[in-house]
């Protein structure tokens, strides 16, 4: 068929194409900007002492961008729901696509449950900070109750699942509007954070101290410095970097820490840039809009992270490292003036305004729970579309591919994910089970997706030229650009996968390695079961994976 030819073929998925470039960007930003940046990247002051955080962010971000481009190119060739699974199964092997899809599915049904459960903690922490910044003890009490009360966590968690689940059921248009509105609100708070961070970079240490004391009380700043020094902060730095003065950029920093642990943590802050690919079957003009929206998200996220982290670090200097140390160790027990709270980028920036511009402090503080909350509808969307795509290929219960006639959404997929998420919330409420796996396992499981996608686009022009022709076909010399990008992405994502697997293997509780192995074996088992079942029913399995599913 030529590019002008339009022929409506009578079999469609039933999904409608409603999502434009802005929504693609919003979906990606909502997914990406969350605890990975605010909590874990800021937390590198303790978890990766001596790191050059901005450099690690740039390197980690570039790796994730390459991974995102692997999926972008696959999606441009095959703009279908769960395009990574479609691409990997059609280009590499159906079993590899299935394993990758099930790993991502398993990660996200956990994330939906876990983050919904922890939303109470995120809101509670933010409300405590708001209460402190505005000198409002009632808010502080409310925040404390929210962040520790299990009943509140379960109730709020279930409420989130129900609200965003119902929004998902009501159709792509409503989903899109909600995601866009949430994105804009969080972005306003984000812009305030960036402005505050830039303000921090213009201040001297003495000015920072004054503003800190205005927020937390006279002597609060010096108390942190004193407690950190007395609590062994320098020895802690020395034990990691070999030099007590190598506390990290903008001071002396350690290349070894930066180029290993720090990159993995930083990459985690960027993962999900391309995750609108799970709705590729619902994107209007997908080849154009998915590319524009995802590139827009990459630029936005890079700018956001660097504009918050660089000036904040520049302004707070070693105080940043000291504060992280105090708040993450028993030294916090020595504090009499400063409240004990989880250090995020928002804590540092908001501290500059609590004493004289509390509204700004509130706005900056609320950015954290807003961005985390924004991710929920997107995290929920991912497993619903994966199960739809697997079912459409007849490798999952067929009910999951049913599209609601009125709302044009895969309603059974959404309902099943909601049910599992609520179950996860109830399990997490039980203290003896605790976290069923850790964040590093989530990134490592998804790294399988990136690695396989990268290999798929590298060989796509040679293995499936008829599919390649449908997507981006630019060349440099005679080599397809997607092969060049794919090659680079393969190396980068392999590095990430190896680093991640090392971290998983290092988990002393064995939860992470058991999760990875368990879900992989489940995927293999289900694949062969459905393969056998389909062959028994007379379905030509090789034909399913020879074709790209209908749009």
């Amino acid at each position, binding site marked *: 068929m030529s590019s002008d030819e339009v022929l409506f073929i*009578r079999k469609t*998925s*039933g999904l409608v194409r409603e999502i434009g470039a802005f929504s693609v960007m919003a979906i990606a930003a909502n997914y990406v900007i969350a605890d990975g940046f605010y909590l874990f990247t800021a937390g590198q002051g303790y978890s990766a002492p001596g790191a050059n955080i901005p450099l690690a962010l740039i390197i980690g971000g570039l790796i994730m961008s390459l991974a995102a481009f692997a999926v972008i190119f696959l999606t441009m060739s095959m703009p279908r729901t769960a395009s990574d699974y479609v691409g990997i199964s059609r280009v590499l092997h159906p079993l590899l696509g299935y394993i990758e899809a099930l790993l991502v599915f398993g990660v996200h049904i956990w994330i939906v449950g876990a983050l919904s459960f922890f939303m109470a903690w995120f809101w509670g922490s933010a409300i405590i900070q708001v209460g402190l910044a505005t000198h409002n003890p009632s808010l502080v009490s409310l925040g404390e109750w929210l962040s520790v009360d299990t009943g509140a966590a379960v109730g709020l968690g279930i409420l989130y699942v129900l609200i965003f689940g119902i929004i998902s059921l009501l159709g792509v248009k409503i989903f899109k509007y909600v995601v866009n509105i949430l994105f804009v609100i969080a972005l306003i708070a984000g812009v305030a954070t960036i402005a505050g961070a830039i303000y921090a970079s213009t201040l001297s240490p003495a000015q920072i101290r004054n503003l800190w004391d205005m927020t937390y009380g006279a002597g609060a700043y010096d108390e942190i410095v004193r407690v950190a020094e007395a609590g062994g902060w320098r020895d802690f730095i020395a034990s990691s970097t070999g030099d007590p003065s190598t506390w990290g950029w903008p001071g002396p920093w350690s290349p070894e820490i930066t180029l290993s642990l720090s990159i993995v943590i930083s990459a985690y802050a960027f993962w999900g840039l391309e995750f609108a690919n799970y709705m590729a079957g619902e994107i209007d003009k997908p080849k154009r809009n998915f590319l524009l929206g995802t590139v827009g998200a990459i630029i936005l996220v890079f700018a956001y992270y660097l504009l918050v982290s660089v000036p904040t670090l520049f302004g707070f200097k070693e105080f940043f490292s000291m504060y992280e140390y105090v708040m993450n160790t028993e030294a916090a027990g020595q504090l009499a003036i400063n409240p004990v709270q989880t250090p995020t980028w928002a804590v540092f920036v908001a501290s500059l305004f609590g004493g004289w511009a509390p509204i700004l402090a509130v706005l900056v503080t609320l950015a954290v729970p807003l961005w985390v909350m924004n991710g929920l509808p997107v995290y929920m969307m991912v497993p619903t579309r994966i199960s739809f795509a697997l079912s459409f290929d007849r490798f999952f219960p067929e009910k999951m591919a049913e599209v609601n006639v009125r709302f044009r959404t895969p309603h059974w997929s959404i309902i099943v994910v909601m049910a599992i998420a609520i179950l996860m919330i109830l399990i997490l409420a039980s203290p003896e089970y605790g976290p069923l796996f850790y964040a590093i396992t989530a990134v490592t499981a998804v790294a399988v997706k990136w690695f396989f996608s990268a290999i798929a686009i590298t060989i796509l022009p040679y293995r499936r030229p008829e599919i390649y022709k449908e997507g981006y076909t630019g060349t440099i010399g005679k080599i397809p650009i997607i092969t060049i990008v794919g090659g680079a992405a393969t190396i980068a994502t392999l590095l990430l996968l190896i680093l991640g697997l090392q971290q998983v293997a290092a988990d002393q509780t064995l939860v992470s390695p058991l999760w990875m192995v368990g879900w992989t074996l489940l995927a293999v088992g289900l694949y062969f079961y459905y393969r056998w079942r389909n062959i028994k029913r007379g379905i030509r399995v090789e*034909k399913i994976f020879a074709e790209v599913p209908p749009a």
Partner: protein
Amino acid sequence: MLKYKVESEDMESFKIFFMADIHNSELVFRRFLSIPKYYEVDVLILSGDLTGKAIIPIIDLGGEKYQYTFKGRTEVIEGSEQLKSALRELRNRGLYTHICTKDELEELKNKPDEVDRLFKKLISETVQEWVINIEEIIPKEKDVILMPGNDDILEIDPIIQKSDRVIYPLSRLVELPLGYGMISIDYVNPTPWNTPRESEEKALWKMLEGKTNLVDREWRKIICSFHPPPYNTRLDLAPKLDKNLRPVYSFGELEKENVGSKSIRKFFEKYNPLIGLHGHIHESPGCDKVGKTIVFNPGSEYSAGILKGIILELDREGLKNWYRIG
């Protein structure tokens, strides 16, 4: 049950014309309408996959100018006569046509539910038109049986059922001359394409067993119009394809594989009806035997406008003669 209306005592034999899988080809349908003119048949059966699979949009450029693109070629048409001719040509190939503006087309591209509705509308209109053509053109003393197949949406059934003239054979035993009767099934064993009427073999077997309740005479007087052919015969051979959908060759020969229904084969082996009439596998025309049942598939080349059918002559003893058309 219908009693055959025109049957005289000295009727020695009668003829059935059977064809399948015309997939909306207007040209093949017109040829079907003219069969009684050239052949002395008493019963005409148009069975399975009556409807088309694609809509080609014709863009109205204004000033009686139109444009469409098909198989890489863009055609510009001027005037109503050229338009009529183009529409006829496209319909002869089995395509539905839809005239619209460029803006309407862009809107349609993003609204699969609108495209769905359009398909239903065009399919229903065409089937209605065909039913009327049959009523008006084929002589009244000839019985015409129209049976949907797996590719046909369920909405066409009421259209056929409403006609007083055209026989809708599903869920009944159709009376034929000389005491013969016909039972029919539109569903097929699973395909990779999720067509409207397909079923697992187990469920298909249940449907087939359900048909036995309609049979009120010896099985050697029963003709089965079952859309899918029985498994492992000459009628269910489809080209074997590799994972890139390319035909597989072995020592220069095209490799084929059996894709028919195991339930239907089992049914014939159990009940031994006289004849099985099938379609579904366009590239496997022929005749074979399953137990005592003789089975036929006329094949299909609808997109080339070729009518392919079978004429069967039956007398009181059984099948007397048969030959292929096209």
